[in-house]
């Protein structure tokens, strides 16, 4: 351990780690943007990263100069044909240059920042760990951003590419703007031929009604559990949680049969009957937690003034709970919007499809993958927009309700 804490050793180690991280990141990033094949070389990365990491500890350079020097080294290595990123068989010069620029400039900045504070001699534990944490932080940002963004990026870009283009080069996610309207062909077809406008409306309507019905049931229930004393309260409260943990697939079979027999299958009304039941327990659970946190004194004052319990709920408790109601509504909306299993099993008729059911129908037949991804984008964008617009409420809702998966 103490050997590792030696300044140059630590600097070399962190330099090597940075170089490997950046080489992979840049190679993948450039490949995804240009479609060119670049190959990160772990061996070269370790070697050069360690040398330069330690080197920068001895030759203290200002950031700007270090970047310039690093870029020049990168350019020279590129011309020789060695380095942390090697060109694949058919990689163009532009892509290589771009990769080299990002890699070396990024490396210089990252290493200088990380190793700030490390000295030539042995470093104390605090400085050493601070440097390590700086690397881990940088690595973490790159890692998490990449893993989260890449699938969504693929989803979006695939929706613009025809099957032929995709097969020709699966890596090429550039957009050919010269195609103009043709680019949005999938979206156009989904809305004109596949009725996605209707599915969007159905999903929206179903989600909103689910939210309203859920609140109508959950508010009185939650209030009763949180505020009123009655025997069986504790058991009830646990019962809610227990019911809330029964997997839907277990219930799906009897529900399928019961709905078929009663003619509720394949109807939006049937869906509206079942969705709130899946959300009422979670809403009840979230709201009772919130109601418990409200000061009881305000309500008692209301009761003293001669208001009935129901009036108290309506006039005092609800106005105080508006933020919580917003969170619960958003959370329930999200569950209803994203629900797949019940829609898949209960709806057959395209004129009644929700978005998720519509996407499932795109998966199977001879329909191009492009359409499938365009459908996914259409389903994802509204919920994302809602989420980003009302993030504060949404985050609260997620935290309070996330006993549900």
């Amino acid at each position, binding site marked *: 351990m103490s050997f590792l804490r030696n300044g140059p050793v630590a600097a070399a180690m962190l330099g090597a780690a940075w170089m490997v991280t950046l080489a992979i990141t840049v190679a993948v990033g450039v490949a995804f943007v240009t479609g060119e094949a670049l190959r990160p070389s772990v061996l070269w990365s370790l070697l050069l990263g360690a040398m330069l990491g330690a080197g920068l500890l001895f030759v203290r350079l200002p950031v700007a100069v270090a970047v310039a020097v690093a870029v020049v080294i990168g350019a020279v290595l590129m011309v020789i044909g060695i380095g942390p990123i090697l060109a694949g068989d058919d990689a163009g010069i532009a892509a290589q240059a771009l990769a080299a620029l990002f890699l070396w400039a990024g490396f210089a900045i990252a290493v200088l920042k990380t190793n700030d504070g490390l000295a030539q001699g042995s470093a104390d534990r605090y400085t050493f760990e601070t440097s390590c944490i700086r690397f881990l932080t940088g690595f973490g940002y790159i890692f998490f951003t990449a893993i989260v963004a890449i699938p969504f990026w693929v989803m979006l870009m695939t929706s613009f590419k*025809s*099957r*032929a283009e995709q*097969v*020709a080069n699966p890596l090429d996610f550039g957009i050919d703007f010269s195609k103009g309207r043709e680019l949005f062909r999938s979206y156009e*077809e989904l809305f004109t*031929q*596949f009725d996605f406008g209707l599915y969007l409306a159905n999903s929206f309507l179903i989600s909103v009604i689910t939210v309203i019905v859920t609140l109508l049931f959950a508010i009185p229930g939650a209030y009763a559990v949180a505020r009123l004393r009655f025997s069986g309260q504790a058991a009830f409260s646990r019962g809610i949680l227990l019911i809330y943990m029964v997997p839907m697939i277990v219930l799906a079979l009897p529900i*399928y*049969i019961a709905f*078929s*027999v009663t003619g509720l*299958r394949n109807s939006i009304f049937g869906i509206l009957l079942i969705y709130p039941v899946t959300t009422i327990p979670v809403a009840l659970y979230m709201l009772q937690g919130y109601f418990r946190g409200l000061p009881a004194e305000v309500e008692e004052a209301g009761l003293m003034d001669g208001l009935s319990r129901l009036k108290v709920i309506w006039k005092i408790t609800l106005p105080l709970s508006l933020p919580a109601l917003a969170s619960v509504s958003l959370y329930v909306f999200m569950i209803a919007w994203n629900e797949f299993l019940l829609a898949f099993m209960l709806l*057959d*008729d*395209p004129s009644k499809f929700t978005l998720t059911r519509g996407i499932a*129908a795109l998966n*199977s*037949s*001879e*329909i*191009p993958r492009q359409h499938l991804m365009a459908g996914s984008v259409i389903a994802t964008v509204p919920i994302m927009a809602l989420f980003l617009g009302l993030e504060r409420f949404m985050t609260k809702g997620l935290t309070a309700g996330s006993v549900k998966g």
Partner: protein
Amino acid sequence: MKTLLTTTSALVLTASLASAENLRFWTTEEQPERLARQEAMAEAFAAATGHSVEVIPVTESDLGTRATAAFAAGDLPDVIYHTLQYALPWAEAGILDTDAATDVVENLGGDTFSGALELAAVDGGYASVPVDGWTQMIVYRKDLFEANGLEAPTSYDNVRAALAALHNPPEMYGFVAATKVDENFMSQVLEHVFLANGVSIVDGDGVAALDEAATLEVLDFYKDIADASPEGELYWDQSRTLYFSGNAAMIIWSPFILDELAGLRDSAPPTITDDPTSSELAGKTGIVTTFAGPSNPDGAAWGDIRYFGITSDASTDAAMEFVEFSMSEGYGETLAIAPEGKFPVRRGNADNPTEYTDLWATLDVGIDRRAPLGDLYEASVIADIVGGLDVAQRWGVTEGQLATASKVINSQVINRVVRQYIDGEIEGAAAVTALNEAIASVQ
């Protein structure tokens, strides 16, 4: 008393005429343009009879599950458009009303149908009403075969010779075999290859033990073409894409490929040249329907028939009217959904015995651009693929065990074992044993 009875009956009759039924029709032709055609036909039917028809698309791979579940729930549609593999199992399970189907065939005239009618014969009638059919084809690059002096891929040996000469990945894969076990496509291709070598999973008494030597020939052949295919879970999609991009020498496909191959459909264009509307690839393509293995020099073709099945929950009379309408006035519209893959099983009517075959020949194929098949392919090629339907075989048809064979196929056990063999997980003899056990266990 008599008068009274007559009056009541007459009243009932008028009432039944006035009561327009609302029929539900499940179809596996779920692409929007095909759906639109079926809806148009349904509207024509509604205008003619007053019964409305709701056209409900069902994904083909879900059809079996969905029908069983709907049967259990007493919620079957009135009419189902289904393939041969379901005809007899469903008749046996009580899903189909075979009496109604038999009556429809009688009303239309059994002699106006081609021989394919007998494929779904049950005791005392027919399980379902046959509508259209197609034969599976080996689609190959005639230009490359000629350039290399190869014979057309009509037998195992010819295909192997072509693989040896042409397989050069990743520029050129010798074959694109089906390897995705849960796709119907793999079942179809495998059955074709088994039939080619004369191997059947059934005999007159039900499931039969496979002939080990002949089965090993089939397995080895399938392993050879799978080895000459790209990695991954392959089914019709990759086969077509690779052939269209000029990276495959041979594939097995249905005639539905014929319009796309000629550049008539933008969502699946040939990409071998820069012009996705070119029919150049069609000109370089040869087609084989009858295929032979070493143990069966005569070879065999594989055909599929699609049916209108009237279910046991149907409003029977209206459903029969609908099927009869779709097989006469509306037949042209039914075939026009995709004429390249829907050869008429009903040839004509009482007035003109070739009414519908003549009509079919004039129908345009294609989606984004349209042309009659005759403009795109030589007459001999078309005659070859259409003629295949009359000699096409399926497991269990000649043995009278189609229901059993269909059950085995639908369970996909054969696909799984063959996949294990081509992946090298089991040896040849073990694979035959596993196949026999798997087949015997499906009852």
